[in-house]
């Protein structure tokens, strides 16, 4: 029987608010003060988010980041640096209680389960995608989605990004993927390792079409009865608190 899930529909925020919202829902869910939640969101301005254990100096070309006018932030989850582009991707989060019987204690199984909504969404769009352990979704071997999970406050936060479009100059301008100087040849090699919905379908797929596929994909994958909702006043209060931390230099540059 389908289980109720709150669905927070696509909204655009800056990086600090986006990460604060994910953490606020996670805390409230762990405390039993909010329901299981699926949230879709986008970023403006574009931002690089680092994994919790990454260092700014190893991963980010600050000069390019400032030139593009992008934000920089650090997630509470591990994993790699991501360019959350306002033009090219949709981000999603799924928040469940940590003791939810659907969530395995094994990290890879847990990723597999919570990535399934993306695989279903891509299938609805006509793209056959596969889960690639530990935390990626690939199409014919090329990455289209990266995911990260954290267990905190008694809840599991699974968040990730789905590439709709891709600007190699931006992505490899701001992310340090090699000590070598950025060259066209390198962009080509890196570009060959990722793909996007627009590239695969050969048309200008709109964000609303992808949004609808994600909603339906997660509904199927989680056997969920999605109920449109918004943040509770308690979560809004937490967002304000957490946002202050996310935009602090101490947090961003902690490694």
């Amino acid at each position, binding site marked *: 029987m389908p289980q109720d899930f709150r669905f927070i529909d696509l909204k655009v925020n800056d990086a600090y608010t986006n990460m604060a919202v994910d953490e606020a829902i996670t805390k409230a869910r762990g405390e039993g003060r909010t329901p299981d939640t699926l949230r879709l969101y986008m970023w403006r301005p574009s931002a690089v988010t680092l*994994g919790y*254990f990454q*260092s700014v100096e*190893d991963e980010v070309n600050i000069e390019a980041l400032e030139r593009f006018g992008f934000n920089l932030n650090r997630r509470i989850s*591990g*994993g790699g640096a991501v360019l959350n582009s306002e033009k090219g991707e949709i981000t999603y989060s799924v928040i469940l209680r940590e003791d939810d019987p659907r969530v395995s*204690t094994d*990290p890879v199984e847990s990723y597999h389960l919570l990535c399934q909504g993306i695989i279903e969404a891509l299938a609805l769009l006509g793209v056959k995608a596969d889960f690639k352990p*530990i935390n990626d979704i690939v199409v014919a071997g090329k990455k289209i989605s990266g995911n990260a999970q954290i267990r905190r406050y008694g809840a599991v936060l699974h968040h990730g990004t789905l590439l709709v479009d891709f600007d190699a100059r931006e992505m490899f301008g701001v992310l340090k993927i090699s000590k070598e100087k950025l060259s066209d040849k390198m962009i080509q090699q890196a570009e060959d390792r990722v793909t996007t919905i627009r590239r695969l379908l050969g048309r200008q797929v709109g964000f609303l079409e992808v949004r609808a596929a994600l909603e339906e994909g997660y509904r199927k994958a989680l056997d969920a009865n999605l109920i449109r909702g918004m943040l509770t006043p308690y979560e809004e209060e937490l967002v304000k608190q957490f946002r202050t931390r996310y935009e602090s230099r101490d947090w961003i540059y902690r490694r």
Partner: protein
Amino acid sequence: MLKKFEYKVPGGKLLRAKLETTEGRISFIQFTGDFFMDPETDLEELEARLRETPAEPDSMGSVVMGFFSEKRTVIAGACATDFVYVINQALKA
């Protein structure tokens, strides 16, 4: 002088160790990378435990292995022996 070693775990994630030694002991150590750890606060605790440890492979290795087995830390994309490996390689750098 900061010593650094970077290692892509086969089938896993990137793991780096950065360390400094003073009079034969670790004065600074930091691990970075795109691995996952639960709870994530264990990494800072491990770094704290390694500070002041004699900067030689046996001492460092036993601290790391003892720490992860005691804490039962869940690591994805790397394992305890990978942490020992990057420390040893950074010490040689």
